[in-house]
């Protein structure tokens, strides 16, 4: 399906990516081309076929409900977690003001 620039802007907004008019114009053709090409999947008869959910049979595991069971992913890692934050403040992630 060919998509227009308004649709491109709508998708960009959903994806939280700011785009210029020039980018929207370029993407109109590129995305339409790609979507038109993938639409050949519509010709495959999938009657009675289940969508793939797991490519290799595997059962989902539960771990024991223990605090800090894994030292790498457990708690008390605040400084490590904030180490790469662009604007940490007082031990928290800093963000622009969201309430007036």
């Amino acid at each position: 399906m060919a998509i227009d620039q308004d649709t491109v802007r709508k998708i960009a907004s959903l994806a939280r990516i700011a785009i210029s008019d020039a980018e929207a114009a370029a993407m109109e053709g590129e995305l339409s081309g790609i979507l038109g090409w993938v639409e050949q999947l519509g010709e495959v008869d999938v009657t009675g076929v289940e969508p793939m959910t797991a490519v290799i049979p595997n059962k989902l595991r539960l771990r024991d409900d223990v605090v800090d069971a894994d030292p790498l992913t457990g708690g008390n890692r605040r400084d490590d977690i904030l180490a790469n934050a662009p604007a940490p403040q007082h031990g928290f992630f800093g963000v622009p003001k969201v309430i007036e």
Partner: protein
Amino acid sequence: MSDLTNLTVAQIRDGHRAGEFSAVEVAEAFNANVADAKALNAFIVETPDHAIAAAKKADADRAAGTLKPLSGVPIGMKDLFATNGVQTTAASHMLEGFVPRYESTVSQKLWDAGCGMLGKLNLDQFAMGSSNETSYFGNVISPWRRKDGGNAALAPGGSSGGSSAAIAARLCPAATGTDTGGSIRQPAAFTGISGIKPTYGRCSRWGIVAFASSLDQAGPMARDIRDCAILLENMAGFDPKDATSLDQPVPNWEAALSSDLKGKKVGIPKEYRLDGIDADIAAMWDAGIAMLKDAGAEVVDISLPHTKYALPAYYIIAPAEASSNLARYDGVRYGLRELPQGAGLQDMYAATRAEGFGPEVKRRIMIGTYVLSAGFYDAYYTQAQKVRTLIARDFDNAFGSCDVILAPTAPSAAFGLGEKTADPLSMYLNDVFAVPASLAGLPAMSVPAALNREGLPLGLQIIGKAFDEQGVLNAGLAIEERAGFTARAEKWW
């Protein structure tokens, strides 16, 4: 002493163990090659000190009699693996300057096995690309050149293009790669080296920057089959931190290597013989069939009827997963933040993502967002997942009559940088032979088999049953022994 950088992983391991050279000598030799190869742009970060430190440890361990499986072997690490204290970027501006405080499971296993790190290898941005031209840190240049005197810069393949170029140029004896839709196999084919993507779930995804989680799988790239087996043994294994990790013992692939294929059946998929197939590729494929027959295998014709739908299904599923995975880059917790004057939270997200992602990454996030959006989800995403079931079923049926499948790795030899960047679709089509095995989660590898008329390497692909990496490696070994591929890129850098 002969040049240590010509040694394979097995030769370095065994030679170090036997006392023929020190690990520090090996690390210094590779560090020198890395430092001398800036023109290839294969590394984003060089870590000579890491390599030397591991080498000193290896030499000490040898003296103490506590050698590890890969003591003394320096490797390259694709910059998609989180490395504690070393910048990890996924070749993106978004993660420029990101220094993880933890180590990926696969890289940790390699360090525990005694490896040292020569550096973080360049790649396509967030592993999205087939030529290494989407990296924020510039193109990797293949060490190979056409024999036409033109010296055109060629693509090393992608997304693991830094890995492939570095191994082919003897900057490292082996490297890690990741393969979502061919990103180990296609670059290996383009540069005359070997690489294996194991069964989905063999290698932990924990600490690997995520692209498409149902497809992403790490694997080794090296100069020969034995080295791939050695590396894979030390990368694979159950990891409770990855929900899709396989809880199975890791076989001793190296010890069980055998090129005797008596009693084995090799399937040749007719759908891979595309109209207008490159004559050199077709000739290489035929030669590969003859080699496997010579090794004792029986060759049978098979059909994988949904092959032509694999690529379009992939270009729905992979972008859909990417659009979800890459939602984490919001300018709040790590990575780039772009905060225009007076902007609120939503504007900060949009500005950060506009600035931090390159054009191909944006394109795929946009496609993924579209196919998952209300009203289109069933027509695109659900349909693609149903087709994926049919593609996996094709392989199941085919493996009823054969043990491994032989096909080309890519439809062409390495192309020139810039040749395919104007049209995203033409780039996507280069993965036509690699993507089906990815969608089915199967082990698959590329082994160098021939040079084309331009003097560029071509690779043969072997696809195996789930969990049968051994069958893939053994068929690869049978080809390696018979192809006698010893060509290497002449040094110009």
